[in-house]
């Protein structure tokens, strides 16, 4: 075949191919709505000025009102000085009823159906075994709890002092607040799920689909870094109910527990209940050997 020489037609074709290729990107971006552009360019929460935070909150409240028909109050309240939150869980009292699980889902506006996201998991273990979780049952479903021959081990984010999830996040989308709570900026998370791989406690869940909450069950009292309704393809986790504890209330799971298994308090306050428990009970923390320094203490009656 004779090789064709460079002709005008070829020149035109090459030119138009190039133009088409280089124009497709600006065309794509101009097709985005103003809202999408603003979301796209939104700054990291910690880098926003007070003015910018107010703007973002107003925008979100407006959007939630349109989407859910409810007036939301989104707090950005900062950590109370002199607080470091700690959690206590008395294993001998837990009956495995999962009331904490569902109180948490409701309080924190978690997705309800396909998938239903839980920040607390209650593991059922055969008596005589606690460390090897391989024999644990996550989906036990008896008529009545507690069941004979079993103990229950609730697990949620342990709010580590040296959190591996924060270390691995490639974009600083998750960090430890001054009061020890590990939070996520849902608008900054890129959805790589590296933190899920890094967490030894399965404390993080991913919004595999657009979250799904019945309007009447929405909790409109939310924190920006906590229980505000979230979006698909980002990670979220237990925040010790940041929206509650920073204004002097107990986390929802503590309130919901019918047996008084769950305790909560300020580790820096020598007179707090959690400090009393640590000093007077036999406490242990999950997977202490990994050096993550959890602020979640399990204990037995003694």
């Amino acid at each position, binding site marked *: 075949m004779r090789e064709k020489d*460079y002709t005008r037609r070829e020149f035109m074709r090459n030119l138009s191919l190039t133009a088409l290729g280089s124009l497709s990107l600006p065309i794509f971006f101009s097709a985005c709505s103003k809202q999408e552009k603003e979301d796209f360019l939104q700054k990291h929460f910690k880098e926003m000025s007070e003015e910018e935070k107010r703007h973002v909150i107003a925008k979100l409240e407006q959007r939630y009102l349109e989407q859910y028909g409810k007036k939301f109050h989104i707090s950005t309240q900062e950590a109370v000085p002199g607080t470091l939150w700690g959690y206590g869980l008395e294993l001998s009292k837990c009956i495995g009823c999962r009331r904490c699980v569902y109180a948490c889902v409701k309080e924190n506006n978690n997705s309800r159906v396909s998938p239903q996201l839980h920040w607390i998991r209650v*593991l059922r273990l055969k008596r005589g075994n606690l460390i090897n979780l391989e024999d644990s049952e996550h989906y036990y479903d008896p008529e009545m709890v507690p069941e004979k021959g079993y103990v229950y081990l609730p697990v949620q984010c342990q709010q580590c002092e040296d959190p591996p999830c924060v270390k*691995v996040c490639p974009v600083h*989308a998750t960090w430890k607040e001054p009061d020890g709570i590990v939070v996520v900026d849902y608008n900054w998370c890129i959805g*790589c799920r590296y933190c899920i791989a890094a967490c030894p406690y399965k404390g993080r869940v*991913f919004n595999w689909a657009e979250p799904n909450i019945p309007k009447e069950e929405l909790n409109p009292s939310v924190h920006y870094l906590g229980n505000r309704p979230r979006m698909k393809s980002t990670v979220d986790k237990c925040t010790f109910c940041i929206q509650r504890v920073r204004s002097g209330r107990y986390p929802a799971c503590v309130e919901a527990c019918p047996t008084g298994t769950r305790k909560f308090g300020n580790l820096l306050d020598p007179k707090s209940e959690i400090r009393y428990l640590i000093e007077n009970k036999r406490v242990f923390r999950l997977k202490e050997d990994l050096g993550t320094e959890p602020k979640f203490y399990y204990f037995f009656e003694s």
Partner: protein
Amino acid sequence: MEKFRQTLKETWHFYSRTLTLVTQGSKIYYAWCLTLLLFIIVGFIFYLKQHEAGLIVTNMNDQVSWGLYIANFTYLVGAAAAAVLLVIPSYVYHFKPIKEIVVLGELFAASSIVMAILFVMVDLGRLDRFWHMLPFIGKMNFPQSLLAWDVLALNGYLFLNLLIPVYLLVKFYYRKGPNWKFILPFILASIPMAVAIHTVTAFLYNGLPARPFWNASILAPRFLASAFCSGPAIIIIIFQIIRKVSSYTIAIEDEALFKISELIAYAMFLNLFLLSAELFKEYYSHTVHIASFKYLFEGLHGHNQLVPWIWTAMAMNVIAFFIFLVPSTRKRLTTLNLGCLLIIVGVWIEKGPGFVIPGFVPDPLGEIYEYIPNLLELMVSFGIWAVGLLIFTLLMKVAIPIETGEFSHVAYVERATRFEEEREAWKISSSGKP
């Protein structure tokens, strides 16, 4: 100014002629490209569905949160790193037969890196926030996060593997000798970079104490050893295809292929040795950390989906090792190719799904979920492989004629002059008529 205009004109000419070159070809070339394009389009449509609905449409979940995408990513980083196996002997030791093909090997590395990056991008839930990861523009967690390291290393390696071959090819095109003072530092830098990308990728898994299966210090050496098996094996196959389609005008000698295959034999020995060292440690000490190994090699509590896969991979790797070890089978093209295919598939299973999935099974709270990719994940993955193959094909379409000398600036000028002369001649002859 005049010089700048000249450069601009030259660049446009080069670019334009390459575009002409890649849009013309034989029927087989068109069929191949269109097939790849078809896979790309199908993959893209499936990806749009995933983008719309979220990753719920895959089979991944909170238990097994990385799947086929990240498995392919891991494998391809290894394949790309293996290009260094060609660079070291050719540039450093001036081993002539490999030197001629090193440019093609580097372009292969570049295509692999593009695929690896695409696999990460389809795995990202929020691709729209990709810019958060860019240094200076976003908020990169460097040097804490190994993923941030990986972004830098992979892009750096991609840059090197585009710069070096493109520079050399453009010089060939103009029939000029390369300026070694300029390009040699980049070539030398690409050697540690190749080791670095794979080490960093290994460390990405390695640094997670939550996942005992990955938290073994033997991981990075194992990664390198297996990469130096599969990468060169792919390259041996590709080079044979190249010399066929370039109708043997490109001088890839058998000797070069045999040399590469000898290197594969050493690498495979190391790979098998490191694996057995790890197996010994796990099975002899027999702690709770053995669970993932058990899941992979013999099944755990009745869950044994990966068992047939890993034993197939083991058999393939061992057979391939003996093929490459014995000189008579290594130096016969039929057995050599069989060995290459066994290694490509065997290492893919071992390094891809056989490495990523057991890290998640059982999960940190002891739950066992058996993950198997679904149709969407397969189609998106095929689409990305097709993108890589298409990029590589187009690069080859330009690189091969430049290397053989068919496509050069001199030839273009000559033809243009001839064309001009013919037209002049035609003008004279036609003006002679009444």
